[in-house]
């Protein structure tokens, strides 16, 4: 019983959460947007590398593959976060009062 009280004793600090902002004043959407931009840049970078290689620039083959793999991984991560977000949204929309 004492142990349970220790765990659940102090309330969680929730300051800042009510307004939907993080302590830095950035919303989650901002973070997501900047991440999406970053992923976009990475994909563009990989594409540019491939094109430059195709027209004869001296890249190592594995550098190109790695660039596109990195872009692929970042995109998958973004996709998963987006799926999670959408799931949460739909869950909220399904709420019955």
């Amino acid at each position: 019983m004492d142990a349970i009280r220790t765990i659940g004793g102090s309330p969680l600090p929730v300051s800042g959460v009510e307004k939907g902002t993080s302590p830095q004043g950035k919303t989650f959407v901002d973070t997501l947007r900047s991440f999406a931009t970053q992923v976009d840049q990475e994909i563009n970078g990989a594409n540019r590398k491939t094109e430059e290689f195709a027209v004869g620039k001296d890249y190592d083959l594995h550098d190109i593959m790695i660039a596109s793999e990195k872009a692929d991984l970042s995109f998958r991560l973004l996709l998963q976060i987006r799926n999670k977000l959408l799931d949460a949204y739909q869950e909220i929309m399904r709420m019955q009062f």
Partner: protein
Amino acid sequence: MDLIKTIDVAAGGMTAQRTRLNIISSNLANANTTRTDEGTPYRRKTVIFEATPLEETFSGRLEKKMEDPIQTVKVKEIVPVEGEFRRIYDPSHPDADPQGYVYLPNVNLVQEMVQMLNANRSYEANAAVIRTAKDMALKALEIGGR
């Protein structure tokens, strides 16, 4: 991201092995070359590798106090190898000396073939690291999937 770092380290290894293969290829191609700019027969070359921290921002490097144990590799130098030239008797050769001897490069075909296999395997090992890092990242992403 940490897995990206793994990939960058392995990529450095792959680049280093590519350079090494280029040098081996040069050695093999010139195994019988008797003329170079230096006026001697071709001299066998070899690469020297050096462990080096990943290229990062200067401040990031300071934060880690330059003690990051994760290091990639880069080609420090390409150096000619000292050693006796092979000497064969062939008076009809245009580059033969007055006694009829021709000096050929100090390239040993067997040695170069072994080096080549070694470079190939190292390259494969680095590729395997990248594959593993990618698999791990995908497994982590599967946590979120349904």
